[in-house]
């Protein structure tokens, strides 16, 4: 079984831990006075961060867990507050005394550590990478996150679900449509209406364009991090053009707040742009194929083995590049419009690079099939109380969202970004590489920090 998410919520008498697997959902009620539960991190390593987060936010202890360090509570965060409990309603907390975080480090003669971040040299999001080095070779890497922890889960509690759409839209800028789609599916379920086919098709078009833009950007940055700048010039031009098309279609360059009950898509614009895009990406593919020094850097680098990927429950591009057929779009709806699972072999930087190119081609084909002129009348109805879940394939991977509504208000909102599991498997990919390969490997995964930290 693959672990998708482990999260907690507070009920009147008990805490509840929900374990979402791909085949079943387990619920465990635990006592509020001495809250503890057995850790599952030994079997499912991706549960480590999930459990550390629950411990920080709910004060629930995990029996048998081997990593007791705080996750979202950084050095100056007060340790005795549990912000996601219902009795916590402060909007302002004070800094505490600095308590150092004990990093995973390898010690020994000649071994040194390279701390990188949270503020990086380039224009990217904050996160910390802690390397233990023997010369150039990486012995160990600890990824530490939650610098961008905004407390979003608490922020939306107690609000009308329709009120929080704007926030959902801006959780992770690169995956905005995916978040909106996941939330829209939940709203549709909660108001007991079926999303009509034509609207579904238009939503899927926007989701695929978002994926194309994300892939294009990466296809430029990956070679750039290996020192091949012309690829970045080529691809950043193309992704800018794609973003302008996105703007013309939705009125926003990132399509914030674009997924409404009625969507208008200018098919003419797509008819003009898509053949051009396809031609350009084909040119890029042929051109890059002829540059052996670039493949020298990308082949055999940053290998995520199939075994490790399965163990960590890795999703999305990273999983598919390692040969694991996992994609939320692998259903009748998408297959009907030409979805084909793209798979890599070895899980190296080169596999992820090639996979992104092939996914662009597949997305273009799907958009061509998804185009529609028709509209149905559709409106979301009144929201009914209950628990709702949804899955969406964002440009990074499987996005899982959970919403509990009580008396028309958000009781608990939880989302597991694909990055959240992929980040945890990330360190397994660097053991054969040197530190100079790190930016290349990092970019080939291109995970979200904002979606991970919430």
């Amino acid at each position, binding site marked *: 079984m693959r672990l998708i998410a482990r999260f907690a919520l507070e009920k009147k008498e008990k805490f509840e831990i929900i374990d979402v697997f791909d085949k079943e959902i387990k619920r465990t009620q635990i006592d509020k006075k001495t809250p503890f539960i057995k850790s599952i991190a030994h079997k499912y390593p991706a549960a480590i961060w999930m459990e550390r987060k629950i411990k920080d936010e709910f004060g629930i202890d995990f029996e048998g867990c081997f990593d007791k360090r705080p996750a979202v509570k950084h050095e100056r*965060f007060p340790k005795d507050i549990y912000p996601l409990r219902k009795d916590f309603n402060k909007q302002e907390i004070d800094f505490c005394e600095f308590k150092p975080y004990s990093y995973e480090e390898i010690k020994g003669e000649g071994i040194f550590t390279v701390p990188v971040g949270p503020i990086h040299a*380039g*224009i990217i999001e904050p996160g910390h990478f802690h390397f233990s080095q023997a010369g150039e070779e990486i012995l160990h890497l600890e990824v530490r996150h939650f610098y*961008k922890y905004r407390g979003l889960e608490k922020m939306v509690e107690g609000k009308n679900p329709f009120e929080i759409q704007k926030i959902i839209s801006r959780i992770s800028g*690169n995956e905005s449509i995916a978040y909106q789609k996941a939330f829209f599916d939940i709203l549709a379920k909660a108001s007991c209406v079926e999303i009509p086919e034509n609207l579904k098709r238009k939503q899927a078009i926007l989701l695929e364009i978002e994926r194309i833009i994300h892939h294009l950007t990466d296809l430029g940055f990956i070679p750039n991090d290996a020192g091949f700048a012309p690829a970045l010039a080529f691809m950043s*031009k193309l*992704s800018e053009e794609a973003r302008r098309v996105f703007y013309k279609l939705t009125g926003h360059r990132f399509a914030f707040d674009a997924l409404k009950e009625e969507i208008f898509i200018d098919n003419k614009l797509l008819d003009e742009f898509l053949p051009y895009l396809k031609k350009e990406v084909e040119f890029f593919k*042929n051109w890059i194929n002829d540059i052996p020094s670039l493949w020298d850097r990308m082949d055999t680098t940053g290998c995520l083995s199939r075994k490790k990927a399965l163990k960590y429950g890795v999703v999305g591009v990273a999983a598919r590049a390692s040969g694991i057929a996992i994609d939320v779009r692998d259903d009748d709806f998408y297959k009907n419009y030409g979805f084909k699972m793209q798979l890599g072999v070895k899980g190296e930087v080169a596999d992820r690079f090639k996979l992104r190119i092939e996914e662009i081609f597949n997305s273009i084909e799907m958009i061509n099939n998804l185009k529609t002129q028709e509209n149905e009348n559709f409106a979301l109805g009144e929201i009914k109380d209950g628990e709702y879940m949804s899955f969406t394939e964002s440009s990074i991977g499987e996005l899982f969202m959970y919403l509990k509504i009580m008396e028309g208000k958000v009781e608990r909102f939880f989302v597991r970004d694909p990055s959240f599991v992929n980040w945890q498997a990330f360190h397994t990919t660097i053991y054969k590489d040197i530190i100079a390969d790190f930016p290349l490997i990092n970019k080939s995964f291109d995970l979200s920090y904002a979606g991970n930290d919430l």
Partner: protein
Amino acid sequence: MLRFWKKRIKTGVITENLEFDRGLEEIKKEIKDKIKRYFAGSLAIRMVDSGSCNACEAECNALSNPYYDLQRLGIHFVASPRHADVLLLSGVMTFNMYHHVWDAYNQMPSPKWVITLGDCPYNLSVFEKTYAIKGVDLPVDFHIPGCPPNPENIIKGFLEFLKGFEK
């Protein structure tokens, strides 16, 4: 590689002649001395994300694409705050980033300026104050609005910021 050069020549220069480019020419004449004095002919910017959604960063990266190519205006992004004149700050300033951002600011040589980018550092955009958000309390000199501001508006914002030195 030959294929690439053929395409490169065919494509030519795509960097746009935006309207405000001419505006810059005019401002340049007026404030040339001041830029020279304050920024040695180039404005070095250190961008720091204090808890954004990553859209502002994506738009800043877009500033380097062939359409905008910001460097030709003499404005460029540097890796270290110690090399920077301006701290360009995006995001809501989370509890966990607060001290790191101040660290970066303190490392910058004086005189220094802070420009906030996007609605988040200004008014939290659509977000609301939570325990995990501190808000920006750096001495802010200029603000570029938008959620996120598009590359054109960011460049315009930089120009407006430079105009402030005329006074």
